[in-house]
């Protein structure tokens, strides 16, 4: 039967080929689950009305003997990936009503692989946030505890997989926006090496960091999706080939723990405890775990919060009320811009645009942006040298389990610190995966919340992430 909580991509594909159930039955089960439970969770901004038609098409292909990696698999996509003929908003009012004129490369790849795309999921506006509270449309709740955030910015995609609405989902990760919500929702989240997955048709936040990746229930499923999504694309000049980063080391089960960094202030006791247990588990699996020093990794977040707003302010300059999206009329063309952008962008987007304008302004450019670019280089070099000696770096994914709504909205800096462990991989372009690692027990029998550990590998070494991740989860 189509028991969604028990199904993975791998097991569902076997059942579909064996005709244990049809793609229509599987998609119907997803749609029923969404109808029943999503009014409480709000993972989806829109469920596409042609999902069953897509499933019928998959059934036809199965009958004709086709065997594609995602044939008949119900998936969700973050609302910042263009799908021809469908609305897409990036969680922003400035794109309300916008209909995508073409398919993003990742959507084309999902379609070619036979996936059934159920709908688009909620997100922080323009992927700016760590809780999905910055969406202009709705608040997504953590399926494990409805009083808490699902993480962000890809909170809707993480919640859709955790709530068993979809077998997998796509997100985008600029500073942790796949891995942090994956940890908060107890699912697997992968950010591939910078350049491995095309961003053509992804609404950009910070172009030197953005990467698309999957949310799944198992590491094996993440690998399947990675294989579908990756590849050089003439429509995205930043994509790389498999040969770009020749592998320097044979995988030999050596994990480095940046001990000082992991001991940073503000790490919850439940996270520390779980991390120690995870280290022990790796040791029992035959891994050598070493303490390592990356002296400048602690500057990653500061570096990120200079470069990211700088790039965001440039990328968001295209939303001018002229070519597409919201338009508000003023007395002249400048006032058109001011009103359109003032009303169309939410508070966090306005904050980052102004901050980005500041760090790029003459007089501050070298001091902030110039220094940040140099620091990025220094951090990248440190990682690169380290991956000559070890295979993987292990940290917790997040400093705390999922927090409550409103807990961090008053102080933007406290929200930014939620990304402390995930940001370094974006700074250095490294592949990085969050894997469920157990539960945090809340005080006074208030229940449990998922926790995640973060594995990061050298450039182009997703294979190491999959190998260690599978062993850790025992699958």
């Amino acid at each position, binding site marked *: 039967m189509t028991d969604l909580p028990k199904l993975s991509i791998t097991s569902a594909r076997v059942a579909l080929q064996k005709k244990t159930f049809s793609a229509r039955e599987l998609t119907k089960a997803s749609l029923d689950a969404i109808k029943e439970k999503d009014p409480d969770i709000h993972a989806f901004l829109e469920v596409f009305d042609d999902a069953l038609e897509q499933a019928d098409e998959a059934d036809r292909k199965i009958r004709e003997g086709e065997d594609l990696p995602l044939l008949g698999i119900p998936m969700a996509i973050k609302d910042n990936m263009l799908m021809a003929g469908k609305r897409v908003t990036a969680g922003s009012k400035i794109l309300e009503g916008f209909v995508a004129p073409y398919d993003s490369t990742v959507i084309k790849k999902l379609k070619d692989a036979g996936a059934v795309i159920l709908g688009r999921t909620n997100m922080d506006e323009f992927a700016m946030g760590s809780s999905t509270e910055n969406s202009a449309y709705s608040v997504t709740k953590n399926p494990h505890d409805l009083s808490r955030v699902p993480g962000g910015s890809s909170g809707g995609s993480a919640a859709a997989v955790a709530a068993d609405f979809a077998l997998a989902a796509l997100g985008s990760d600029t500073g942790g926006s796949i891995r942090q919500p994956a940890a908060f929702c107890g699912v697997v989240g992968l950010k591939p090496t910078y350049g491995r997955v095309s961003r053509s048709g992804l609404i950009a936040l910070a172009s030197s960091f953005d990467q698309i990746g999957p949310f799944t229930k198992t590491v094996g499923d993440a690998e399947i999706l990675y294989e579908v999504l990756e590849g050089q694309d003439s429509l995205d000049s930043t994509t790389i080939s498999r040969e770009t980063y020749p592998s320097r080391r044979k995988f030999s089960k050596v994990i480095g723990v940046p001990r000082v960094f992991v001991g940073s202030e503000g790490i919850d006791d439940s996270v520390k405890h779980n991390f120690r247990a995870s280290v022990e588990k790796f040791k029992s699996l035959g891994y050598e775990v070493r303490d390592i020093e990356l002296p400048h990794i602690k500057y990653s977040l500061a570096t990120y919060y200079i470069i990211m707003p700088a790039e965001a302010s440039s990328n968001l300059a295209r939303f001018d009320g002229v*070519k597409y999206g919201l338009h508000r009329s003023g007395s002249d063309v400048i006032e058109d811009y001011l009103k359109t952008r003032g009303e169309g962008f939410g*508070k966090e987007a306005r904050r980052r645009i*102004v901050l980005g304008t500041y760090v790029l302004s003459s007089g501050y450019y070298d001091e902030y942006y110039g220094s940040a*670019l140099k620091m990025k280089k220094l951090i990248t070099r440190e990682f690169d040298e380290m991956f000559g000696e070890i295979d993987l770096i292990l940290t917790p994914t997040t400093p705390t389990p999922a927090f409550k709504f409103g807990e961090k909205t008053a102080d933007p800096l406290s929200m930014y610190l939620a990304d402390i462990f995930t940001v370094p991989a974006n700074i250095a372009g490294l592949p990085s995966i969050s894997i469920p690692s157990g539960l945090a027990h809340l005080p006074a029998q208030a229940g449990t919340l998922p926790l995640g550990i973060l594995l990061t590998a050298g450039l182009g070494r997703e294979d190491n992430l999959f190998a260690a991740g599978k062993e850790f989860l025992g699958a």
Partner: protein
Amino acid sequence: MDKEEVLNLAKLARVELKDGEAESLSCEFDSILNYVGEVKKVGKLDKLNKEESTIRNVMRKDGKPHEPGLYTQKILAQAPVREGDYIKVKKIL
């Protein structure tokens, strides 16, 4: 950063701020800039050249344009204000 500076930056970035927003942004920016400013203090950076960054431009030759007008209607369909096959804007000068 004072309120006037925030208002000037917002104007340059073509974003109208809400009432009172410049005040709250000026406080938040002080705290954010204080945090990110740590980056400037690292002495080792002086020895690095930002131009030899890991990022470089990838260029390609122009060529193989599509048939003129192939996407015109699709693109114009999204324009908030149009006149015929043109996007309409207020006068610039």
